[in-house]
């Protein structure tokens, strides 16, 4: 790019804000991201190791004390999801800027680091109106359902060995259930908006999410069959010698595609096609209600890559360097591995978002029903057969 004739300085306009936009400071940006990840890591340690240790020391381990402990952990996880949303929205804008040869937000905070805080404040300050034609109760409820559905996935994600809120032995079925619930919130939002365009958008979104849930569930089942357990902690433990993405290569690819569709991410972002339906199902939402839809999407942008890591990349496995497994230090290191692997996958998702155009609605559905479901079924049968003969 240094050979092209950049016109003389006075021809090249933007001179905002008193700093030279020709000089970006990548070290500053990296420091900002590391700061966010550090805060994230601290909250994870606090939630999964700090709070149980505190409550154990106080002796409030059972009965109502247990309920209180879990409540506190959930509150901390809510804080975690806020940090995740802050970081991911910033990262999305900055990364899109990098791909598109521009800087992204640069104004608020060091290299734009606090931009998302101001976005959130703006959304808070906006008038949260309800359109006259809308069904008020359901209109208010829809973003809440969507957010809760996404947030509820946190309950079963293992950040490190033993660091899980609820290591139930039906974790996978629970995951399928809550991802279906987020489709429900989207539909409800569109139906209750009282707007034709929102209805069309909600129909498309709902149809797409429901269609892609079938291959998603089939891949979940494949992983369950291969690992022999329905609990996520068990699935991670079963990957001790071999990470799942090698023997389960086909389901892995299908899962990545299905996750993109669940997220309503490009190339499947038809329901949110900004250039076609304005915003689809959430066109009538503003203020904090909209913020909840937005938050749900970005929390899922973290959670679905986290699930990819849990199912196919060995979760929190990594070299412990002699630390005693089960100790706080080992747990912290393992959660760092988990975060790093999830970050790689989030980056890949953002990369896809920056590059590809979107598929048309019926092409999406055709792909799900005619290509992904047969492939997923085939993958399931293959995995069952392989498990029989190998293990």
């Amino acid at each position: 790019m240094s050979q092209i004739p950049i016109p003389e300085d006075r021809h090249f306009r933007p001179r905002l804000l008193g700093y030279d936009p020709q000089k970006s400071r990548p070290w500053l940006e990296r420091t900002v991201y590391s700061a966010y990840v550090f805060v994230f890591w601290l909250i994870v340690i606090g939630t999964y190791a700090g709070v149980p240790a505190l409550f154990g020391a106080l002796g409030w381990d059972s009965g109502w004390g247990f309920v209180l402990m879990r409540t506190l952990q959930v509150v901390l996880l809510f804080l975690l999801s806020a940090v995740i949303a802050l970081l991911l929205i910033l990262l999305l804008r900055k990364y899109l800027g990098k791909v598109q040869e521009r800087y992204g937000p640069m104004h608020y905070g060091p290299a734009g680091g606090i931009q998302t805080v101001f976005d959130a404040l703006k959304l808070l300050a906006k008038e949260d109106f309800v359109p006259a034609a809308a069904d008020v109760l359901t209109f208010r409820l829809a973003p809440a359902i969507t957010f809760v559905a996404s947030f509820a996935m946190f309950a079963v994600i293992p950040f490190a060995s033993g660091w899980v809120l609820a290591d139930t032995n039906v974790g996978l079925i629970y995951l399928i259930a809550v991802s279906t619930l987020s489709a429900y919130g989207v539909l409800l939002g569109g139906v209750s908006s009282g707007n034709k365009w929102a209805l069309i958008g909600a129909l498309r979104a709902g149809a797409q999410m429901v269609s892609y849930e079938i291959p998603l569930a089939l891949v979940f089942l494949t992983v369950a069959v291969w690992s022999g357990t329905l609990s996520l902690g068990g699935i991670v433990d079963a990957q001790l010698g071999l990470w799942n993405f090698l023997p389960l290569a086909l389901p892995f690819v299908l899962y990545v595609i299905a996750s993109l569709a669940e997220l309503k991410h490009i190339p499947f972002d038809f329901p949110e096609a900004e250039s076609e339906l304005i915003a689809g199902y959430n066109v009538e939402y503003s203020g904090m209600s909209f913020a909840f839809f937005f938050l749900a999407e970005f929390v899922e942008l973290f959670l679905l890559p986290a699930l990819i890591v849990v199912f196919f990349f060995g979760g929190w496995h990594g070299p412990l360097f002699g630390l005693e497994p089960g100790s706080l230090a080992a747990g912290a290191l393992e959660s760092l591995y988990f975060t790093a692997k999830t970050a790689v996958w989030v980056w890949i998702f953002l990369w896809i978002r920056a590059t590809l155009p979107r598929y048309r609605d019926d092409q999406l559905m055709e792909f799900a029903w005619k290509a992904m479901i047969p492939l997923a079924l085939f993958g399931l049968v293959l995995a069952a057969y392989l498990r029989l003969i190998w293990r």
Partner: protein
Amino acid sequence: MSLTAFYALAAFVLVFAILAVTTASMVRAALSLAITFFLIAGLYLLLGSPALAAIQFMVNASAIPIMTLFIIMMTQSRTSAGPRSWQIAAGLLAAAAALVFFKGNVGHGDGQITPVSPETLGVNLLQAALLPFEVASVLLLLAMVGAIVLARRRAG
């Protein structure tokens, strides 16, 4: 403590079930039904079967409400008249009959909850209850085929 949870869940189940049949707005009725099923999943959890609770959540509290919303959206039917007086009477009669029928069973349990693991559930489904399981899946297949035939006839 589980007794408190049981009473709370049961009360809310009743409230939302009554809401589901009395609301005029179809969307709210479907939503109340979904919440009712969700709370029943909670009851299953109290009974020690997280597998069944998760399946109840997945099917009845997530997937079926989505289907009902699709139907509401596509048929554009938004309101329904509330229950008529004979329907209310029939409902109360059915509730009374159920109370009488089950009265013999109330208070006879031994208070022990045997947790049912997914393995047990799966094994039972595929061994002891195999025939009903297969019949149910054939029924679902029939329903799917029927829906496709009906849709095609309407479009073509």
